[in-house]
């Protein structure tokens, strides 16, 4: 009996390893994904004044800090019963678009693309962003420009490109000047063009790797995403579960999440395993993120992205169950986020100075949900009458995905080591 350990898992944020136990003939008998770090945010936000928490939780992830900032401030708005001005909502949404653009560009071009462009068998020392710059400098330059646009968008709405700070209960602390808006408007069409080219690139890569896409990491799971009136939504909307065969759709409000989602602690990983409560553990494990979003939504919210989604369904079917189709789905979301950015920038309200409602701290319980780059993100806080956090629960995008990632790795290991 042998054992294979893959450690550390690379080109990801966070810490993990995979252990594969083999029988005498070298076939895997047990495959586990271990998440090996824990910091304790759910504990150490307890005792903090709630308005401080949006400035703490971005450190959960340096790549998707903005969604944490926003889900957190939304949870406090909800706990304290405050309705924020519509311009503030749009500015927060614009900040989120900045993060989706940065993170999707990073995730695809900097982290995933080296496997596809340089090939999965390329030397590990070049199978990375540096190697990509060498091999495909034009692609790399456009990726850098796209990511820069996203980061600048966060900086001008959130105050800092990494770990933004402007979300405060009741709204946002910074307006967007006309000058700042115009600078983005000047660039956005180019960035939309780059995103369209990204989809062309992934389509050709799909063809090249279709055998792998169809055989590795194809698993049937439930799917969870955010929809608004059935359409794909990033900032606001209801949650929707979709069954593995696509026949069942269950919509619910973020505030009801505990009636639908539970978590199970396993002995071998610091991450908790979420599952769809009605189905139970482990049958109810599900995927979130771009692939799940393509599956759960009735349509994309913007025209170019919707066209791209239809093509995606033609290639992968619906619901698409191929884990490697995440890359394609991600690039569709990137295009959608760019289109939505343009809509927001063209909205006359985006430069409004009415960005903050009055707010009083009180005892309450609030849930804040946004679609983070890697999927549904849930923050839930209970505050006392002074507005101090007394209880917190966070279900982070990649957390939802861990049980199904493990399942995909099991499937892939069995396929490769057969």
């Amino acid at each position, binding site marked *: 009996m042998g054992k294979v350990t893959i450690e550390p898992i690379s080109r990801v944020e966070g810490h993990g390893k995979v252990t594969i136990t083999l029988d005498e003939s070298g076939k895997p008998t047990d495959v586990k994904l271990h998440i090996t770090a824990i910091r304790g945010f759910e*504990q150490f936000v307890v005792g903090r004044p709630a308005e401080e928490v949006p400035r703490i939780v971005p450190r959960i992830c340096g790549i998707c800090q903005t969604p944490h900032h926003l889900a957190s401030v939304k949870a406090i708005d909800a706990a304290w019963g405050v309705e924020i001005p519509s311009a503030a909502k749009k500015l927060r949404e614009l900040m989120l678009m900045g993060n989706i653009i940065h993170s999707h560009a990073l995730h695809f071009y900097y982290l995933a693309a080296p496997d596809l462009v340089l090939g999965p068998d390329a030397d590990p020392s070049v199978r990375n962003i*540096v190697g990509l710059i060498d091999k495909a400098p034009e692609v790399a330059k456009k990726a850098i420009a796209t990511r820069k646009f996203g980061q600048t968008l966060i900086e001008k709405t959130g*105050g800092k490109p990494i770990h933004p700070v*402007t979300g*405060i209960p009741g709204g946002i602390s910074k307006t967007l000047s006309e000058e700042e808006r115009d600078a983005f408007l000047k660039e956005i069409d180019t960035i939309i063009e780059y995103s369209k080219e990204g989809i062309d690139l992934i389509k050709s890569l799909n063809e090249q790797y279709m055998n792998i896409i169809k055989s590795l990491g194809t698993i049937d799971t439930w799917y969870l995403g955010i929809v608004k009136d059935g359409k794909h939504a990033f900032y606001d909307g209801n949650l929707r579960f979709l069954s593995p065969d696509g026949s069942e759709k269950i919509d619910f409000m973020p505030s009801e999440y505990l009636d639908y989602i539970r978590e199970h602690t396993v002995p071998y990983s610091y991450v908790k395993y979420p599952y769809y409560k009605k189905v139970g553990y482990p049958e109810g494990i599900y995927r979130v993120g771009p692939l799940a979003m393509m599956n759960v939504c009735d349509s994309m919210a913007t025209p170019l992205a919707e066209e791209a989604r239809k093509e995606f369904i033609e290639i992968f079917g619906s619901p698409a169950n191929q884990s490697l189709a995440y890359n394609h789905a991600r690039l569709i979301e990137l295009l959608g986020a760019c289109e939505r950015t343009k809509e927001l920038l063209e909205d006359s309200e985006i430069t409004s100075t009415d960005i903050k409602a009055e707010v009083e701290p009180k005892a309450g319980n609030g849930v804040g949900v946004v679609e983070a780059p890697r999927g549904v993100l849930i923050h839930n806080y209970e505050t006392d009458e002074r507005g*101090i956090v007394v209880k917190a629960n966070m279900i982070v995008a990649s957390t939802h995905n861990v049980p199904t990632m493990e399942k995909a790795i099991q499937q892939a290991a069995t396929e490769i080591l057969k």
Partner: protein
Amino acid sequence: MADKVKLGMIQLCGCSGCHMSLLDLHEKLLDVLPNLEIVYGPIVADVKEIPEGIDVFLIEGGIRNEHDKHLTEEIREKSKIVVAWGTCAAYGGIPALGNLYSTKNLLNEIYATGSVDNPDEIPEENVPKLLDRVYPVSHIIKVDYTVPGCPPKPEHNASLIMALLEGKEPNILPTKILCDECPRKKKGIHPKELKRTFEGIPDKELCLYEQGYTCLGMATRAGCGAMCPSVNVPCRGCYGKTDAVLDQGAAVANAFASTGDAVLKLSDKVGLFYRFSMADALIPKKVEKKK
């Protein structure tokens, strides 16, 4: 320029934000990267073992568990220069707020939140044991340079790397306090009342602290360009203490004490004063009551 610099990078108890900030050099990356050979760096590359003979190793994040500690020691053995990169590595950063709870309580709370169906289980197999608290890297090994910031500004990363490429001493950090680079006007007064960030709308020109907002600029190293006060949000001290100070929280407290009763009414003083530097404080964790 001489041979490529062999660079190692790792994220320990951090968030990868420092790595992201390096990528925020954007198109300048194309100038910097060709001079570097990233020999280890799980966030961007696939090499699984830390090789020998590394020129410069950037450690992001503090030390939270036994594995972090082990890796830190291994990195020290295999690297000529080790940099505590970012505020978590330098002072513990946000995760060191966990030092205000015992490891046992921390785990008990996490694995018993509202959505958990089996609150008696605590993971122990194949996961590294937590230490009693978060430690800054310098408490575990000798550190050659410290570059604070949450995250460090991209230009600080660039200056660091350029200096190391040229074999020079990186001398990139301002020694002044944040107030010295903050554009807001100061009158030299202490506020009579302290406000929470959602209370009222701050005046755009005047010092946030003097308006009663709990800005920590007076106890924080300059360098970020006062990004938070510039967008009407008080500083939380993410660049850490200045060289003249031993304990950042005490430096905040000395200033805030002058508000008299106002500061005494403030909730969660330690969580504010030591927001980013708990692990580096003179008293770096909450002391457990003996039973």
